[in-house]
């Protein structure tokens, strides 16, 4: 199979993202000094499945890398190397490289440095994997237990001892029919107290229809506490303790140990003795473990403090244009289509009866009821299809997490990224288009917003900068906020820079309001850094952000306070595929305006229109609103005989970020849900036109790009000296 197939890329990307998510989690845990072995195992599994996938699709490079990473993770699991900063760095590098390897590339493209990273991984293993001396004698556990421990289990057991925890043997007896549930419950319970190291078949068999298990639990609780907590009808707790304190493992504060790691036990005992000694009863726990995996994962996510979108079934994959769909949703859609088919059959039947002259009284009524039914089903179908397009925004938040990590190291600023609302769903298309703008914004926050640690200390702020990434639904829109607690923006300085960059003249600067000055950051070629660095400062950031957001019919607002930080809010429609539109007419041509850009529509007398230096304006609730005539902007020629009401005009007030402009049109034809269709390559870039749609009877109608029109209008108005000033929010 072909490694460039979208199927492979999609799946692989998902695995890489899972890997990266777990890695971030592990990093947080290693900082707090308490690495959860389950998390490490999950990380291992993600890479392992990636390796399998790569093998299946013959993706050699990815397979090789996955193999190496898997090896490293395995050694981490077995405690042969420590989860040091160095190891984490290499693993994160692997995440990036996986991403680079997944992008299909031509012959002349740069080949990602796979060899270099493989050598680094190799280096890790060697420096870390020294032959550890046996540092604890476990023989007191007895041959019965020792002989069945796997290398990994033994390592966990030692690890628990090193942390000074006690070991307990929990003997449990399960009804053979309910063993799945029983083990799950017990495991959940025990997890709260410590670590379940292994399940062992028990020697003493109580009854035919029961299975007995010994579970080795490592915990820091005392025997009494454990016993109280766990003992019930079929569960007994026994203490496992070494014969004398002298032979105990040297208790060492393990987790934060710096590299070079302490000599760790190279597994000498536990040579899996006669396989027959791990008999069938070993099986049920394994099966139980798989059954439990989902709930335990949820618990991990909750306890980790960071929203873990792992449970989200639908995943965003930027390289492949696929959406993973819950089968149940497809079933619903399928059913709907089936029902529509039935209705169609009924309608055909009715039609034939009517043609045959059967004008029975109830034919009309039946027809009406069928049509109504069909309309309802169609609406459901539309909703269902829309739902299928929806994906949680969490996936790009994960990517951003990585960006933050990388940048904070590059610029040596400590940053905490707080995420909320990762499960907010948006149209797949929007989610895809959002990742670049959000990345730019986060970069700006880190580079320009967050101060250096000493500067923060002087301002009395905690040394670590904080960036909040929030998503939430607000009415039928989604708001995404990026907020930092940095130095904020000084509008006077921005204004000064605007002059220096030649974006505004001295005169323009004079009349500028703080809001307008702040909005200069969205102008092309504006950068507050004197010299470009690798992170930002090439002056392409925020104007790209603005353009991209505007393309999604979104708006961006800035709120900033000097010394306190800045907040960028992006307001977006939930979907782009179907939008509500206001249908208008100008000089005999029909257009649609996305309703989410329309603030209000007002009817005015021609006499209310005044002029300021030739620019038409109208006063709405005490504020002066500049007017743009659509017919003039587009050079529309009215068809012969077209005579709009000469005394009445309609003004559609549209807004883009801070700017408000009134579009003058001849007629408002109503609101409608429209399906947006893209225009071909040739006319995709017509300024002011965002797409096309159909309004029944095969009538194609253009959809206005309000952002662009407002931009043009504002630019034009600035020429007349009627800038957005008084009309801002």
């Amino acid at each position, binding site marked *: 199979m072909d490694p460039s197939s979208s199927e492979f890329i999609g799946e692989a990307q998902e695995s890489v993202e899972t890997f990266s998510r777990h890695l971030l989690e592990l990093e947080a845990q290693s900082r707090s000094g308490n690495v959860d072995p389950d998390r490490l195992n999950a990380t291992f599994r993600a890479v392992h499945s990636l390796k399998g996938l790569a093998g299946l699709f013959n993706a050699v490079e990815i397979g090789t890398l996955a193999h190496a990473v898997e090896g490293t993770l395995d050694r981490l699991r077995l405690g042969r190397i420590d989860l040091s900063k160095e190891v984490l760095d290499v693993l994160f590098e692997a995440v990036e490289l996986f991403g680079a390897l997944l992008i299909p590339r031509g012959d002349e493209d740069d080949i990602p440095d796979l060899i270099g990273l493989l050598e680094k991984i190799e280096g890790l293993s060697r420096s870390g994997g020294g032959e550890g001396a046996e540092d604890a004698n476990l023989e007191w556990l007895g041959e019965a237990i020792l002989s069945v421990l796997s290398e990994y289990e033994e390592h966990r057991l030692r690890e628990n001892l090193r942390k000074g925890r006690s070991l307990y043997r929990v003997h449990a007896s399960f009804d053979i029919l309910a063993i799945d549930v029983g083990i799950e419950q017990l495991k959940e319970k025990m997890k709260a107290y410590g670590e379940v190291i292994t399940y062992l078949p028990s020697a003493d068999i109580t009854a035919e229809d029961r299975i007995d298990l010994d579970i080795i639990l490592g915990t820091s609780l005392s025997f009494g506490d454990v016993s109280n907590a766990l003992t019930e009808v079929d569960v007994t707790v026994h203490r496992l303790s070494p014969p004398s304190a002298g032979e105990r493992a040297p208790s060492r504060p393990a987790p934060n140990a710096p590299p070079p790691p302490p000599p760790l036990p190279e597994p000498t005992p536990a040579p899996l003795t006669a396989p027959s000694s791990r008999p069938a009863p070993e099986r049920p726990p394994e099966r139980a473990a798989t059954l439990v995996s989902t709930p335990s994962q949820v618990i991990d996510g909750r306890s980790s403090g960071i929203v873990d979108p792992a449970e989200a079934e639908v995943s965003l994959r930027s390289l492949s244009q696929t959406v993973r769909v819950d089968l149940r949703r497809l079933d619903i859609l399928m059913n709907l289509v089936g029902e529509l088919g039935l209705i169609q059959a009924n309608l055909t039947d009715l039609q034939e009866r009517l043609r045959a002259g059967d004008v029975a009284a109830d034919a009309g009524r039946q027809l009406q009821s069928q049509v109504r039914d069909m309309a309802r089903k169609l609406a459901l179908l539309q909703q269902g299809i829309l739902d299928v397009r929806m994906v949680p925004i969490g996936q790009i938040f994960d990517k951003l997490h990585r960006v933050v990590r990388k940048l904070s190291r590059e610029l040596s600023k400590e940053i905490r990224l707080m995420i909320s609302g990762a499960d907010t769903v948006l149209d797949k298309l929007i989610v895809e288009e959002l990742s670049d703008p959000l990345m730019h914004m986060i970069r700006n926050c880190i580079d320009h917003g967050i101060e250096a640690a000493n500067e923060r200390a002087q301002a009395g702020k905690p040394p670590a900068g904080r960036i909040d990434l929030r998503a939430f639904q607000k009415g039928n829109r989604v708001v995404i906020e990026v907020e930092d607690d940095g130095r904020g923006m000084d509008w006077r300085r921005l204004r000064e820079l605007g002059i220096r960059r030649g974006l505004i003249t001295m005169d323009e600067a004079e009349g500028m309001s703080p809001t307008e000055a702040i909005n200069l950051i969205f102008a092309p070629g504006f950068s507050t850094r004197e010299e470009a660095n690798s992170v930002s400062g090439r002056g392409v950031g925020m104007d790209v952000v603005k353009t991209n957001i505007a393309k999604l019919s979104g708006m961006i607002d800035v709120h900033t306070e000097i010394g306190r930080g800045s907040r960028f809010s992006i307001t977006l429609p939930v979907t782009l595929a179907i939008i509500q539109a206001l249908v208008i007419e100008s000089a005999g041509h029909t257009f649609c305006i996305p309703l989410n850009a329309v603030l209000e529509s007002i009817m005015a007398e021609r006499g209310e229109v005044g002029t300021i230096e030739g620019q038409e304006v109208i006063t709405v609730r005490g504020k002066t609103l500049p007017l743009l005539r659509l017919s003039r902007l587009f050079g529309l020629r009215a068809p012969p005989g077209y005579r709009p009401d000469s005394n009445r005009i309609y003004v559609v007030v549209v807004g883009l970020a801070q700017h408000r402009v009134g579009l003058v049109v001849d007629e408002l034809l109503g609101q409608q849900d429209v399906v947006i269709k893209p*225009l071909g390559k*040739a006319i995709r870039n017509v300024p002011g036109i965002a797409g096309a749609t159909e309004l029944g009877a095969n009538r194609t109608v253009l959809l206005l790009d309000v952002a662009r029109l407002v931009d043009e209008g504002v630019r034009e108005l600035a020429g007349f000296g009627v800038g957005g000033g008084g009309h801002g929010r």
Partner: protein
Amino acid sequence: MAAEGDDLWQALARSGEQVATDEDYEHGYKQREVRRDLRHYVSFRVGDEIYGLAIGEIEEITKQFPTTFVPRTADFLLGIGNVRGRIIPVVELARRLGLRSSGYDRAARVLIVTLDDEPYGLLVHEVLEVVRIPPEAMEERPGGISGRRAEYIRGLGRHRGALVIILNLAEVLDPKDFLRLRPGDEGGSW
């Protein structure tokens, strides 16, 4: 059984029938190759001239359908129309080629063509027929025609004495010609 092949040859020799030789095969093959070289073109009338497009470039031919005017585009773009759910830009070929652009009647057709996987419509006055033109009947475009128009022509073909101008679709539908920039838009700093 083993002698069957020999028997066949002997039987043929006796009956005096001729067996095809290698040269015969080669000859026949060559002749076929020349035939395959013939190319099919759809010929159509724009104004008073006859044009042609390779048959593979044309997806379908439809009657004229209503189009919607798109502001800020070149005047040869008639507008956009809807063909079975797809939005298609429709080019008035006569204007694009600088010819008389009136007189569309019931014979007028829209050729739906594909270029770089994107559909376009070409409005023509009349679709004539499918013609086969052997390569030896094709001419390079004459040097006399110069400028932009010359680039639209891939070659000149002769079919029963009539001249068929074969179009170069990539040039005729060059996307950068579709936009009409407003006077203030060039080099805009925004």
